[in-house]
Every structure is written in C-alpha cells, then in structure tokens.
C-alpha cells in the first residue's frame, strides 16, 4: 500500500512536471524562442569556433575571414571567446559537442585541450585547427609554412649579396615554430660556397627580443669593424631584425649595404622596411587566407572528403619596400 502511494505520487509529480514543462515551452515558443529560431536555421551545418585569443589582432583576421566564408556556405557559426581561459575552451568544446554541432574549429595549442578533443572524438565531431598545432585527434591544422617563410628570406639575402659574404643569423631553437626557420636558412646559406655564417645568436627574448638583439649586434659590429665585413643579418623573426637595425644605425654603419631580413612582417617591421633602409624584407602570413582555407577545409571534410595530410599550408607573401604599406 505504501509502495502504491509512492508510485501514485511519482505519477502525479510526472504529470505536474509535464504540465509545467509544456506550458512553459508554449509560453517560451511564443515569446523568446523565435529569436533563437532565427539564428538556428534548419538543416544548416552548425560549426563552433572556440578560441581563448579573440582579442589578439591575428586571431580576429582568421575569425572574420572564416565567418565570411561560412556565411557564403550558409553555415550557422558560433564564435566563442574564453578570454584567455584555456580550461574554459575544454568546457565549451564539451558544451557544443553535447549540443550536436557538426564541426569544431579551435585556435589554441591542442596539447592543452586534450580532454575536449577526446570528448569530440567520442561523439565523432571532427575538430580542425586554425593555426593551432597538430594532434592525432585534429583532422587538419591550417597554418603558414615556417620552412617556406624562412626559404623566402634566406634566398632573398643570398641573392641580394650576390651569393658572397659574411652573414649573422638570429635564431631561437627553444620555440619549435621558430626553430624550423633557422634550419632552412642554414641549409640555404650552406649551399652557397662563398657565404659564411660568422655568428649564430640566440637572443634573450624575455624583454621582447629587440633590446638584447641590439646589444648582441653591437658586440658583433665591434668585433667586425671593417666596412663590408658583414654583408647581411638574417633573423628568424622581426624583433631581432629590428634590434640589429638599431645597432647598425647607432654605430653609423647604415651605409655599408648590410642587408637585414625578418619574418612575420609586424607593423614595426613594415614601417622600417617602407623607409628603404637596411631592413629590406620580411614575410607576411595570410591570416585572412588561413581563416578562409579553414572554412574550405571543414566544408571538404563535412562533404565526405578525406584529407591525407594533417596540415594544410596557406601561402605567405614576401614583404619589401615595394609592398610594405599595402594592406
């Protein structure tokens, strides 16, 4: 009898619950749900873009280009910024997996969001990297080719100095994306019998890299006082190139024809290149292209295509005085 009463009570509670839910659902549908229905177009592919770094300029370029391409494809895109919180990226990945998105795009080191990648893999939701890094659980990472960027500038240097002279290199092996650039530059210079790498500097980057690179370059200039004893400075990124430029100008040796190149083409580097001084070239990543190509890669895979490679490279562009002020 007691059991029966409890059973009845359970039934009554169920009825009450269902009544409330149904009533609430109706009321809501009439008022608020239309707003959500408008954004959640039926049958559109649902894609979530999750990043902790939306406030950074490069990321905004990727995301805007991705959204533009996704709009052409008719997708329903949800961009989520966790404002620097990497654990929240995992949480939001779990949320959108649960919500049933068709694909996820991340812009964070996959090594830090393994739990989220696993949740997506369990639910068979493909995850793509937008300049993120490679991981067995990421279908493909879309990024720039660091090897190719280094080849552009090192070959520029070799050609500019006529395949002959002393070169100073600034490299940074502890950071893998920069380390690969140094490898290529060494190979290129090694292929010219008359080019000699007289110094290979790893600057202290704790202050941003410019100040220490300048100090190191001043010491190298002091050790090589003869005009023409240094033909070029090849830097694996822009900050050491800017530091070397400051050192050369401070030493009054800007008219010896020392060629400087950097990589990344940040605004300060573009300004220096545009003035037509010693800093002659850098390489710009195509951030918008990375965003667009990521959308195309997602579309290809969602359309049933299979990618053999797990990295998709987007071409970069050599920046010289001729195009440094182009946008």
């Amino acid at each position, binding site marked *: 009898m007691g059991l029966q009463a409890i059973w009845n009570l359970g039934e009554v509670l169920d009825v009450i619950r269902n009544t409330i839910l149904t009533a609430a659902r109706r009321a809501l549908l009439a008022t608020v749900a239309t707003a959500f229905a408008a954004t959640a177009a039926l049958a559109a592919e649902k894609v979530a873009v999750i990043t902790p770094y939306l406030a950074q300029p490069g990321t905004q370029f990727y995301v805007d280009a991705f959204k533009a391409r996704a709009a052409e494809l008719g997708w329903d895109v949800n961009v989520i910024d966790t404002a620097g919180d990497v*654990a929240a990226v995992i949480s939001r990945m779990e949320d959108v997996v649960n919500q049933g998105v068709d694909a996820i795009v991340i812009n964070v080191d996959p090594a830090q969001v393994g739990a989220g990648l696993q949740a997506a893999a369990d639910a068979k939701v493909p995850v793509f990297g937008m300049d993120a890094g490679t991981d067995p659980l990421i279908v493909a990472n879309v990024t720039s080719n660091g090897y190719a960027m280094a080849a552009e500038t090192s070959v520029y240097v070799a050609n500019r100095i006529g395949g002959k002279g002393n070169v100073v290199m600034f490299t940074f092996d502890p950071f893998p994306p920069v380390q690969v650039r140094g490898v290529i530059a060494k190979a290129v210079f090694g292929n010219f019998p008359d080019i000699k790498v007289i110094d290979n500097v790893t600057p202290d980057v704790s202050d941003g890299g410019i100040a220490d690179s300048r100090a190191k370059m001043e010491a190298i200039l002091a050790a090589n006082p003869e005009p023409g004893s240094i033909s070029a400075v090849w830097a694996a990124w822009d900050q050491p190139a800017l530091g070397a430029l400051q050192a050369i100008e401070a030493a009054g040796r800007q008219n010896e024809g020392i060629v400087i190149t950097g990589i990344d083409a940040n605004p300060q580097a573009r300004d220096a290149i545009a003035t037509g001084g010693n800093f002659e070239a850098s390489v710009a990543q195509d951030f918008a292209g990375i965003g667009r190509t990521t959308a195309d890669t997602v579309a290809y895979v969602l359309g049933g295509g299979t990618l053999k490679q797990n990295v998709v490279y987007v071409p970069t562009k050599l920046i010289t005085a001729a195009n440094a002020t182009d946008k």
Partner: protein
Amino acid sequence: MGQVMRRYGTAAGMAAIVVFFAVALPDTFLTLRNWLNISQQISMLAVVAVTMTVVMVMGDFDLSVGSMASLAGVVAAVAFTHGWPVWAGVGAALAVGLLGGLFNGLLVSVVGILPFVATLATLTMYSGFAFLMSGGKTIFGRDIPAAFSGFARGGITLGATDGRPLVLPWLTLLALGVTAAIWLVLEQTAFGRRLYGIGGNAVAARLAGVKVMRLRLLAFGFTGVGAATAGLMYAARVASANPTQGSGLMLTAIAAVFLGMTMSAFGQPRVLATLAGVVVLGVMDNGLTQLHVDSYVRDVVVGAIIVLAVSISAFGRRATGG
C-alpha cells in the same frame, strides 16, 4: 512577503533559469551527460568558492586565490620537469598553498592588515613567484605526466548512451569531497561556529573567550589549500601550467559566495548556498553557449543576474527591517 522574497527569491530565480534552458534546449540540456559535463566544468570553481566561504564567514576576503591556483599548478609542473613523481609534485603544490594561506592569515590576524590590502599584496607576490618559477612560459607536453593529466579525464563509468561512455568525473567527486569536508568543518564543529561568531561580532567573540587571532589564521590556511587544489585540478585538466591560468577564478568565486549569501537565512555565507551559486554560474555558461549567445553578451547577462539577485535580497531585507 519581503522575508519570503529574500529567502526564496534567488532559489526561485535559479529554478527559473534551469526551466528556461530545459525548455529552450529540450534535447540536450536536461540530459545526464550534460549535467555530468557541467559538474566537471564547475569543479575547480566550486573548490575555490567553497573554501573562500571559510574566510567570508568571518567577513574577510582572500583576493590571492587566483594567483595561488596558478602558482600551485606551476609548482607541480616544475616539480614534474625535475622528475618528481606525481604525489611529490602534488604534495609540494598543496604545501605551497597551505603556507601561502597561512601567510595571508598571519598578515590579516597577527599583523592586523585589512584582508583586502593584505591579500591584494600577496596576489601580486604569488603571481610573481609563478612567473619566476615558470620563466613566464607555459609548461606542457611530455613534462606533464599522463597519470596527472589523466586524473582530469577519467572517472567512474556509469554506462553508455549513443555509443559514448557516461562518466562521473574524478574532478566532480573531488569537488564534492572538498565541499562535504568544508560543510562539516563550518556547520558541524565548534571551530566553524566560532568563525560565524567572529563574523557576527569579532569583539564580542573575543570577549567570550574565542581565540580570534588563531582562528582567523587557520581559516586562511583552508582557503590557501583550496586554491592550490583548484590550481592542480586546472593544470590537470589542461595538461599544462602557466603563470596566469588561475586568475579568472578569484572574482567568479567571490561572486558565487555572494550569490549564495542571498539565499541564506541571515545573509550569511553558507557552504551549500555557495555551491548553489557556483552551479548557477556553471549552468549559465553551459546553457548560453548551447543557445549560441555571444561570449561577451554572456558576461553581461551573468553580471546582471548577480546584481539582480543581490538587489532582490537587499529589498527583502529592507522590507523586513532585517
């Protein structure tokens, strides 16, 4: 009427939020899988907020919990890079948390600095230590043992739906354990009752023979260990440590305690009320993400809800003259 509004206004609001998401997301929100997700997502915040409650009971604050969480993660990660076993790295991080918490307590109770000022200073110090130890870098990859990061991915398998396992996460269980322990300490021991006494009237408590100085010192120790625990949970979840990753926890934890205070009888911080506050914040994040609400709009909405809850509580208090 005012009394009712004050006591149950927040609870009704919380229920309304859950009903709203249940209706707006009929297929995914009220599923066991989603709630297990939410429980794991809020586990770190729960540990910080619940241990923060211990000092807030006395009317104090600890602003250094976010920095301490970052520092604890970095301490463990650096220990791992030097080949320490997992238990030793975790132990070192918790010890740092205890020492840091007791140091806060020392400044507040023995030296007599206002908690806001004292813990603002230690916030900066602990953050500085975290940067010093890590060299400002994120420590990740092979340096972090799989046994450590695996803890944040594992749990007790409850079954499977849609071919995917349903797991009660270890992080959730840990947060529940910490909550239960702090509940016992605050609600069931003389120590806890004395802390509430200090919060009611510190002078009266001292005159009644309560060793205010010693209790305040100890209370900050709880908060320090809680922050370090949350920092370790965070580091395990992201399988990495960097010197700023815990910084978001502090303000959210204080917000959760305040949200909880609007539900309790005399507007006091209570452990279970704090937990309810944490759950609401977690539910908002989860539900609004699923509803496609812009991340920045989400922040505005969450802030507005805190203002609303505290306002209703304040009106209720005025209406009852309490």
